[in-house]
């Protein structure tokens, strides 16, 4: 578990002080994959680096597994850091050492007996699929392979938390997908809490359970991936969601909204999971005296579950519409009326 309580971080640079973290309060529960997204300079790296105290906070507390890291003495802090694994955008491997030694390093620092190290490293390399690379050097590996080494190294001491600072930002989409798959596997098999930061919403969509949106050192929005994707509350949140699924209404829909008369109603309908395949809309047109017209829509997969977003126009009387909406409610289909530009 990770908890930030009233955390502030100010950098005193050469000129004006930079408020990199501004009153951060949030909590990552055990076993969760929590994503933080934001534009460059939002403070994401600063945030994640406070979790293992690569960066000290200016005010507030950072609680990891019940301990306030900001109050720990250096020796205790070093012990705690071994319970927190971290992977980096540029991998940060030792180029002068073999893959074996790189993965073994956290154990070497712990003075773990050689035979135990050997066993554990073999296990880890097997887990990340690099058993055959043990005696090679990092510069002989591809980016994706290097990140796998980074992951194996981060897991060496059986941490309860894994921090990922833009872990896939230097990788191509396909390699990114395989690394994300590996993160999911780590989370599932070892129940490791993962905090990851990224500027790619697709990463959040593909692996995270929860998401926080950062801007100017503040968390401006957060919630389950479903909630934020289906109903982003902030302009920045909306823009990020829009990078992976279009929720912005196309111009022709906006025109229709302007022109709608008393017998036309435009609704946004979100559906999740198996609901997506059920023909609710055709049911509505059969059961009630309404014409159903799908104006716009898309379906995305969120954590392996289809998530649909449709803009639908109902044509008919107000009474019939009421009945239809009730029908949607009974079937747990989320809907909201669209009547503004923003939708």
């Amino acid at each position: 578990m990770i908890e930030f309580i009233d955390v502030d971080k100010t950098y005193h640079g050469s000129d004006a002080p930079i408020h990199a973290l501004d009153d951060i309060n949030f909590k990552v529960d055990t076993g969760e994959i929590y994503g933080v997204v934001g534009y460059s300079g939002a403070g994401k790296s600063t945030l994640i680096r406070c979790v293992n105290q690569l960066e000290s906070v200016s005010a507030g507390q950072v609680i990891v597994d019940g301990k306030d890291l900001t109050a720990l003495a250096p020796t205790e802090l070093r012990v705690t850091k071994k319970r927190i694994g971290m992977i980096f955008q540029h991998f940060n491997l030792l180029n002068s050492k073999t893959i074996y030694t790189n993965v073994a390093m956290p154990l070497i620092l712990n003075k773990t007996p050689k035979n135990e190290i050997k066993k554990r490293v073999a296990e880890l390399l097997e887990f990340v699929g690099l058993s055959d690379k043990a005696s090679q050097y990092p510069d002989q590996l591809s980016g994706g392979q290097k990140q796998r080494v980074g992951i194996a190294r981060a897991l060496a001491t059986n941490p309860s938390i894994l921090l990922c600072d833009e872990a896939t930002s230097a990788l191509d989409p396909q390699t990114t997908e395989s690394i994300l798959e590996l993160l999911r596997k780590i989370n599932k098999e070892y129940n490791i809490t993962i905090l990851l930061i990224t500027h790619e919403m697709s990463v959040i969509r593909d692996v995270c359970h929860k998401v926080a949106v950062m801007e100017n050192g503040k968390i401006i929005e957060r919630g389950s991936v479903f909630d934020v994707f289906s109903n982003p509350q902030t302009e920045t949140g909306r823009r990020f969601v829009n990078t992976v699924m279009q929720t912005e209404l196309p111009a022709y829909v906006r025109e229709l909204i302007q022109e709608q008369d008393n017998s036309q109603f435009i609704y946004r309908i979100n559906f999740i999971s198996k609901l997506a395949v059920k023909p609710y809309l055709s049911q509505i047109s059969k059961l009630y005296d309404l014409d159903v017209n799908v104006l716009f829509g898309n379906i995305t997969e969120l954590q392996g579950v289809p998530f649909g977003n449709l803009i639908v126009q109902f044509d008919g009387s107000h009474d019939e519409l009421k009945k239809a909406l009730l029908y949607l409610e009974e079937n747990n289909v989320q809907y909201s009326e669209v009547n503004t530009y923003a939708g």
Partner: protein
Amino acid sequence: MLVSWSTIFEAFLETVQMVSISFIFSVILGLPLGILLYVTRPGQILENKIIFTILNGVINVFRSLPFIILLVAIIPVTKFIVGTSIGTEAAIVPMVFFAGPYISRLVESSLLEVDEGVLEAADAMGATPMQTIIKFVLPEAFGSLIVNFTISIIGLVGASAMAGTVGGGGIGDLAITYGYQRFDTVTMLITVVILIIMVQGLQSAGNKFARVVRRR
């Protein structure tokens, strides 16, 4: 030619002796100081303004003295350490005072080349400052250290020739006493050739070693 080949060979051995002994002592002095400079530098793992400023200043003082001046200036120190200011042993003292601070600077710059990210990884793993230096920084800087040590040892070959002027012995001494003071051009040429070969040999050996270390 006024000197025999065996005299030349003897002088060569003296040079080798002066250079290698002073190199070893210079590394013993310069490596820890270079590491200390690196770790106490502002923003580094054991940041310490006082130690860094003092060390930095002292090293700059030594680094700003040309060897020929240093040679003469520290004669009292030399006398105190080896009991005399003339001869091969006496030459080693100023050579160490010359190369030690030089090496500490080069070591510092080699260590500064190590990727920030590696330090970050060490920190994230909970490495102690000692472990960070020994397990992360030094291995990563090894190739660059070899290159810089090669530069310093070649600097010492040059210094050893100058040390000859105060009766330090070696190839330099030979060149001064015969080549310069007695106009023995042949001896002069031979010493020049020997110095060139030494420097070339050291340089290519250093390069080779650095390549092996860096695996490219």
